[in-house]
């Protein structure tokens, strides 16, 4: 069982929802990233999503685009991102890490070189936003061979037939994009999310994470009612941006933001358990 699957299984046994924060690697400076990751785990993160910066992040909104620009000002490369994971693993061998990004930096490194290095440094999963299952004939077997879970997105526009097709390719968990739009843009329609997740559950036994639109404890708690995992990205990245001129304060600031969400989710989980 992969570290991601194990993590979800443990949480499920305890009646808990996974909290999955996203940050862009190297934002605003490379040295800040690993301390932020540790602080997020201390604040209650169960799985970490680390973004590989890309010059043209088409599926992301302005907040994450700017994070990529800050990281790229320091030329943060995919190899450096992998080095950050290696550094993180020196102190934490438990928390699963998912690398999230776009196809081109991985293409540029080479699928096989990436898979090998990712396995070696302790990456658990990869989510390539602009690589749908249709384009993974070469990519997917290499990731599987190196024990990396391939995580795919499902969107509000995804049909039920397509959900089944995606589920055949997915490992670790499935990431439901809860809004039609880019990251950090709109407000959640909880009824629609619940409806889509129940359709998705008919296609897969994999845990379901929900992201793109969760901005505070309240929305995190609402999502935790219906999902196995809650992904929080733009809200944390905005906090990083606000502290970009005082990078030494970032880990603390981001951690306290995440702690609020953890608290709200736990309250919701406990309420469900006691209901």
């Amino acid at each position, binding site marked *: 069982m992969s570290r991601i699957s194990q993590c979800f299984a443990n949480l499920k046994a305890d009646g808990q929802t996974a909290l999955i924060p996203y940050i862009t690697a190297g934002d605003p400076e490379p040295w800040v990233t690993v301390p932020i990751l540790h602080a997020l785990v201390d604040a209650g993160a169960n799985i970490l999503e680390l973004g590989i*910066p890309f010059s*043209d992040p*088409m599926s992301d909104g302005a907040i994450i685009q700017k994070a990529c620009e800050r990281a790229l000002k320091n030329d943060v490369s995919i190899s450096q991102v992998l080095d950050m994971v290696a550094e993180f693993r020196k102190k934490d061998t438990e928390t699963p890490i998912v690398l999230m990004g776009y196809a081109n930096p991985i293409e540029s490194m080479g699928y096989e070189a990436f898979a090998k290095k990712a396995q070696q440094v302790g990456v658990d999963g990869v989510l390539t936003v602009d690589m749908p299952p249709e*384009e993974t004939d070469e990519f997917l077997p290499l990731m599987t061979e190196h024990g990396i879970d391939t995580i795919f997105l499902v*969107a509000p526009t995804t049909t039920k037939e397509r959900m089944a097709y*995606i589920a055949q390719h997915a490992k670790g968990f499935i990431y439901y*994009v809860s809004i039609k*739009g880019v990251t950090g*843009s709109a407000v959640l329609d909880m009824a629609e999310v619940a409806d889509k997740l129940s359709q998705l559950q008919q296609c897969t036994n994999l845990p379901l994470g929900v992201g793109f639109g969760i901005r505070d404890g309240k929305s995190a708690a609402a999502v935790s009612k219906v999902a196995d995992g809650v992904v929080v990205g733009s809200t944390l990245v905005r906090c990083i941006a606000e502290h970009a001129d005082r990078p030494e304060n970032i880990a603390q600031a981001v951690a306290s933001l995440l702690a609020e969400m953890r608290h709200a989710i736990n309250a919701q989980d406990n309420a469900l358990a006691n209901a």
Partner: protein
Amino acid sequence: MAEQLNNEYYQTYPDDKGHFGPYGGRYVGETLMEAIYELEKAYKQYKHDPEFQAEMDKDLSDYVGRPSPLYHAQNWSKRLGGAQIYLKREDLNHTGAHKINNTIGQALLAKRMGKTRIIAETGAGQHGVATATVAARLGIECVVYMGAEDVKRQAMNVYRMKLLGAEVIPVDSGSRTLKDALNEALRDWVTNIDNTFYIIGTVAGPHPYPEMVRDFQTIIGREARQQILTATGRLPDALIACIGGGSNAIGLFHPFIGDETVAMYGVEGAGHGIETGQHAAPLCAGTPGVLHGNRTYLMQDKNGQIIETHSISAGLDYPGVGPEHALLKDIGRAKYVSVTDDDALQAFHDLTRIEGIIPALESSHALAYASQVAPTMSTDQILLVNLSGRGDKDMHTVAALAGLNFEG
């Protein structure tokens, strides 16, 4: 033999996943997947629909003004002292470039698909104007994304789009040019997917765009092939076209791919010179990668980040290129070369003075290459050059280089 190659190539590319050999494909976020499948289905349905074709043919003749003439540039040919140069006059189309061949087709498709809103990206503004034009005629809401840098360079076209009723949104991210406009248009599409049709202006993007835009643009090559046969009784020795995304070039090349005796040259923008790194020539100096929905040659750094391009012409200022050109390069069927800003500008002035035709700066790259190869050929050989657009939009840029400054 020619017929055989013809059939084999045409039947093979793209495959049913939109791949041109290793290039092309559907590299987009999940939210867009249903939309591009829906588009592919609609396009397949209407492509062979006689009613759709008839409506399109009528628009192309009565509204666009096709067929565009094939003009024997005798003065210029004589001056260069070699091959006879024929110009395919796409500059005479309504709105001043080849772009409208494609927007007419996509807009008719949008209407049949029941979409009520059209978006587009634009570089030089020609595609934006061509889109705003068809949207005005169909009475559909139109939003055009344009890099802030290009908004500045192409103020006249921005005003034309606004006159036509389009909303022009300047894009301030990244290099503030065409690639960033494309990113922003894709973001808009994801957000407004239910009612919006995205009219991509070139033979790039996810499948089916490279195939569909090519099909709409092959009217250029189909007409040119017939016209040159009528005028000279034979096929040309070579075709020349400029390449940004590559839609005018593929439109000219595609119907000739099976004609083995016809050489093909795609001309990229060498900007200040390939060696300076400040250029827009991914086929000549780039490497394969994935951007904007397809795998193709890209201008990128060693970490796979897209790098900023430079060309005097906004329409060539793009770090990628249509995937079919990537394939034609690899199989050697077309050759890709580049021309600097300075050489393009010289050709711009030459054609203006010698033939009384003011070409677009984009097309001037093709003309510049023609002026380099024509003298090496004999006077009974034929070069067919795609004059893809007219230069009215470039007055501002050319005048500024001469030290003049217009307001507005």
